[in-house]
């Protein structure tokens, strides 16, 4: 009996040590060498910018937007100065969760511009992929661990958060190794993506444009009819925005001409649902954001720099009109 007690005491000590080491690594300053860790930086960016703000949120089609230009032109001779925040990151992230995550940081007077890629709205397979995607869940956990811990606790699942913490701790340590391998002693820790300072500007836009790849990826995809139940989160967010004095716009993403024609019926149906059923104001309609295929870099979602300038101007023009 004494032996077993002694053993139990030692085992408990070992478990406590393991948990303590996990907590220490979790709390220790460090970055994560994973694109999705930029969620932390984008959250911090949103927190740091003064209200009223124009917040772009969506997938990677937004990431090369020229926010600095929009801010400059929007505030020219304007009574109210808006600051621009670009939260666009990756279409594979659950937009419902992303919108829930930013809610606590939104203030009355803010303008939210939602711009999701078509696949995330009209492709059933991609929708399933988003919901099964563990990486996205891990990094959403990183930006608000407390909230997610409570959520998992209520679900009675304490193993999942433990796995996520271990995975994120592993990534943090590997990123430390990366700093050592790169001899990057001047590296500034942001608590988010390892290369955030190098890759993104102070508005959250990607500094470099996408590599041009031909043939263009993901062309010729055939979408399904929009499923209202799966898009209901847009309606919920719209209701939330209305009750909190926040302006919400939906901006249709850039899309190649040929692919647009191929999916025109579904896209127009989506337009109708967002505009008429969900009562969300449209900033840019689908026809406005159709570009020739030569405008795209590597996928049907990513614009080349010259066409990005054109898209930015369009968004700016519409935004100016909407605010006035």
């Amino acid at each position: 009996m004494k032996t077993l007690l002694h053993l139990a005491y030692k085992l408990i000590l070992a478990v406590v040590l393991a948990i303590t080491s996990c907590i220490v690594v979790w709390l220790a300053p460090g970055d994560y060498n994973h694109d999705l860790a930029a969620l932390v930086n984008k959250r911090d960016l949103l927190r740091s910018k003064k209200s009223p703000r124009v917040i772009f949120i969506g997938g990677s089609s937004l990431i090369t937007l020229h926010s600095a230009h929009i801010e400059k032109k929007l505030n020219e001779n304007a009574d109210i100065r808006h600051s621009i925040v670009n939260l666009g990151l990756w279409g594979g992230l659950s937009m419902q969760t992303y919108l829930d995550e930013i809610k606590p940081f939104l203030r009355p007077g803010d303008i939210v511009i939602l711009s999701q890629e078509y696949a995330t709205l009209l492709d059933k397979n991609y929708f399933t992929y988003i919901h099964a995607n563990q990486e996205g869940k891990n990094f959403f956990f990183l930006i608000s661990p407390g909230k997610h811990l409570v959520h998992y606790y209520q679900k009675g699942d304490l193993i999942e958060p433990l796995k996520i913490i271990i995975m994120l701790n592993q990534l943090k340590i590997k990123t430390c190794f990366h700093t050592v391998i790169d001899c990057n002693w001047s590296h500034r820790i942001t608590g988010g993506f390892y290369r955030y300072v190098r890759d993104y500007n102070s508005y959250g836009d990607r500094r470099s444009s996408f590599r041009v790849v031909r043939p263009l990826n993901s062309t010729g995809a055939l979408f399904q009819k929009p499923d209202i139940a799966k898009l209901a989160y847009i309606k919920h967010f719209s209701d939330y925005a209305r009750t909190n004095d926040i302006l919400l716009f939906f901006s249709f993403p850039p899309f190649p001409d040929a692919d647009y024609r191929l999916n025109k019926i579904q896209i127009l149906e989506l337009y109708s649902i967002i505009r008429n059923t969900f009562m969300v104001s449209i900033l840019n309609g689908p026809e406005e954001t159709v570009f020739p295929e030569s405008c795209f870099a590597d996928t049907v979602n990513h614009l080349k720099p010259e066409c990005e300038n054109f898209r930015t101007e369009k968004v700016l023009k519409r935004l100016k009109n909407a605010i006035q």
Partner: protein
Amino acid sequence: MALLIERSRSGHHVSPIICLLIGVILPVLVLFLFKFNKFFNDAACQIAQLLHLNYPRSLLALIIPVGISYYTLQCISYIVEVYRGTAMAERHFGMLVLSLLFFPRIVAGPIERPDFIRQFHEKHAPDYLQITGGIKLIAWGFFKKLVIADRAGMVVSEVYGHQDHYPGIYFILATLLFAVQVYSDFSGYTDIARGSAGVFGLRLSENFGNPYGAKSLSEFWRRWHISLTTWLRDYVYIPAGGNRAGMPAKYRNILGVFFISGMWHGPGLTYIAWGIFHGLLMAIGVWTRSMRTTVTRLIRLDRHHGLHDFLKKTTTCFLVCCGWIFFRSESLSQSFSIIRRILIGIADVTSSLLTWDMVRLKDMSDIARNNTILGFSRDTYRPEMLILALSIVVLWLFQKAREKFDVWETLSHKALLVRWSFYALLTAGILFFGMFTKEQFIYFRF
């Protein structure tokens, strides 16, 4: 059968040899039926298709019982030892089944001998040292599996799985890493099994003894999968005449044992080729032994022990790694294709270096595929490779230390702070560097 063998000695009317034959042939047949079922089923299906016959493929597809390869060998050794009179037939059916199906070692060994049953009859009071020793061994096994084997496995699977994408020299890296993977994976499992048994106060036999430190192939086989090698020695090689029936019989026996060893791993031609490859090398080794000794003496290599040992170890490692190419490949044609690629790769690198063709060398280093490098994401592959290299060094140092002293025993006599620092490091190593994938142990499939 074992009981019948014993009774036959005390005047019972059953011939012990018949009992022995039934006791050996029956489990072998069952093993053969399950292991080769897919092989024969596929072949029969193809023949049926050719003859336009309706073949009930799914009806005849059997699910292989867990650990059948291991407990079949144990059943045979039990019957044989009872027949030889070196072991008593077990009267308690539960004890016999428990020893055969003891959970830590059911899926991947070690293959125990009949005296293992005796441990189940002994009384086991909780022993603090034994339990903690077992836990330490389990932790070390997990370190080998999760930190080293699964990480090395990522690179191996990537390179072997995308042959056309990688220049030949990367197959050298992948094969070396497979050698590390298969050792860490299998010895890691053995450590976990031995540790788990230790927690229950039972002792399982050692299965590995630093095999890559062997100076010859025969020494390698005395250090690798010891329980299978000794089983084949005791129940196949020696009964077939061993090395007492002249040189031709000795070569035949060596080849036969390695052929069986290859077959035991599975019905694939790659395993059989791997077994024959080792058998041939062993036979050549025996045949050229005196010749090699003379050459060594002539060039006075035997006077430089350090260099001689190093050359022997390197050669052994090289030959073992050549064998692993067959073991890891999906098919024989893939094995030969990889060997050809390695040779071309070596020639490419050599000619590029000789002509100082940096552009060609740079081309060879461009191995990114689908935003990944050697199976890891672009962002993490360098830390992953660094962790892999460091953990292999840790493993090597541990093996070196184990050759000189019992690491766990020595550690248990150190100051509390030293001990717990080591345990904390080991736990942190598993927790922070372990690959928590769904990769199963390699030897589970055998």
